[in-house]
């Protein structure tokens, strides 16, 4: 089957396939609806699309035929709390419920190869959910939700904190690492039964100085794990780039010269943990490309140095921003893709050194994902 690139966009699920040296774009489903996340499960080929219908809430659909037909399945949801209306309506009217509700399905991840049917979902507000039946039902991971420090998590870009990155160690599927904006790095070694806030060494520049290294108030914009060396985790953080060699327990700040160390996405080579890509933007108060010039940064030496690549990218002023799931590398480690909130999609051949505008004028792109 030809390689396929899935795009979760503001106006539908789009897919690109190579055709005679070009990329052919098609609508795979949900035209007009906001698709917040997409997953092609490598274990059985199933496609999942998480929707944010705005008026009508978060929904999840699955296709078992490559996107030709879709079935709505259960979406992750918080249990209804057993509030009762106040007995005296004169005291409080109208009465209010206070329990949580899923506002966004932010990431959807396939479980490990030894756990068929298992899926993980991260949401806003910051819920971690597990399904063991291909999305027919979901269970909130209460050990994390009920952690006494969770009320200290805070929103980063959204009003509430959310879970956007879920890494599962392919050597041992009980070992998991989460990235939370803004709640730092969380690790489990027992398949989610217990959690610990780690990520020691991450530094923030937006809290009081004594809180700069507080693991709980870190805002990892995105973390990605090297498939062949899962102890290596790269982090594009709110105010820097960090590298962990011990599966997220500790991080070292990368201080190599770079056009900027602010951005959202990070891709790591599936075989080479020292090689990673970033798309720099100016900084948090100006989320546009540095000098209006879109570029991709790559390190091949574990962050000692960066090279920037502009070959095939726009020469003129551009305002394209790649959001946190908007950069991805294929399983072969040769071809990247990035999609912008402005709605442009580029494919980067030869390890992201030569870029081609594969599709312009698309809706805002939330996620690019190689199938």
């Amino acid at each position: 089957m030809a390689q396929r690139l899935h795009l979760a966009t503001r106006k539908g699920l789009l897919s690109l396939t190579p055709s005679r040296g070009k990329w052919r774009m098609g609508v795979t489903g949900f035209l007009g609806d906001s698709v917040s996340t997409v997953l092609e499960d490598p274990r059985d080929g199933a496609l999942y699309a998480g929707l944010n219908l705005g008026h009508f809430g978060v929904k999840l659909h699955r296709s078992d035929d490559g996107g030709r037909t879709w079935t709505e399945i259960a979406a992750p949801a918080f249990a209804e709390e057993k509030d009762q209306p106040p007995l005296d309506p004169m005291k409080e009217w109208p009465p209010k419920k206070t329990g949580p509700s899923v506002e966004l399905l932010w990431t959807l991840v396939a479980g490990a190869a030894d756990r068929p049917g298992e899926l993980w979902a991260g949401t806003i507000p910051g819920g971690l959910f597990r399904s063991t039946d291909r999305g027919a039902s979901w269970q909130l991971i209460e050990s994390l939700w009920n952690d006494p420090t969770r009320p200290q998590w805070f929103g980063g870009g959204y009003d509430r904190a959310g879970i956007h990155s879920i890494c599962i160690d392919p050597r041992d599927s009980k070992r998991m690492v989460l990235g939370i904006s803004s709640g730092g790095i969380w690790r489990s070694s027992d398949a989610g039964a217990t959690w610990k806030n780690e990520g020691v060494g991450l530094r923030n520049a937006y809290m009081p100085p004594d809180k700069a290294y507080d693991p709980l108030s870190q805002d990892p914009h995105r973390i990605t794990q090297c498939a062949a060396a899962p102890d290596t985790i790269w982090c594009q953080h709110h105010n820097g780039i960090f590298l962990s060699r011990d599966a997220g327990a500790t991080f070292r700040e990368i201080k190599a010269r770079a056009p900027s160390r602010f951005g959202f996405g990070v891709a790591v080579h599936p075989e080479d943990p020292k090689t990673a890509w970033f798309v720099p933007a100016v900084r948090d108060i100006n989320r546009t490309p540095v000098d209006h010039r879109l570029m991709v940064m790559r390190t091949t030496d574990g962050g000692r140095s960066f090279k920037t690549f502009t070959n095939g990218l726009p020469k003129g002023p551009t305002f394209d921003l790649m959001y946190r799931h908007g950069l991805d590398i294929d399983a072969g480690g040769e071809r990247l893709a990035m999609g912008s909130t402005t709605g442009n999609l580029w494919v980067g051949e030869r390890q992201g050194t030569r870029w081609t505008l594969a599709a312009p004028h698309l809706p805002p792109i939330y996620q690019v994902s190689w199938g």
Partner: protein
Amino acid sequence: MPRLSFTPNLERHLSCPSARLPGDTVIAVLTAAFEGNPRLRSYLLDDQGRLRKHVNIFVNNEPVADRDFLTDRVADGDEVFVFQALSGG
């Protein structure tokens, strides 16, 4: 019995024809509708059973006052309309 009808925009996602349903509160009428159409619930109500932020329900010409518990009273012959708010698209 009250009559429940829906914005046609919901038809994009699931079938929801108008129907006469039993109940003396908005939530009772909705619950009767959900019994025959369980998917409908999550389109109108959030995880806690509150009316979704950008969905409105009118009883005759009045918007419901209680959006969390939906205890507004309805009577025989009342029209209960489910609308999509113009916000939140």
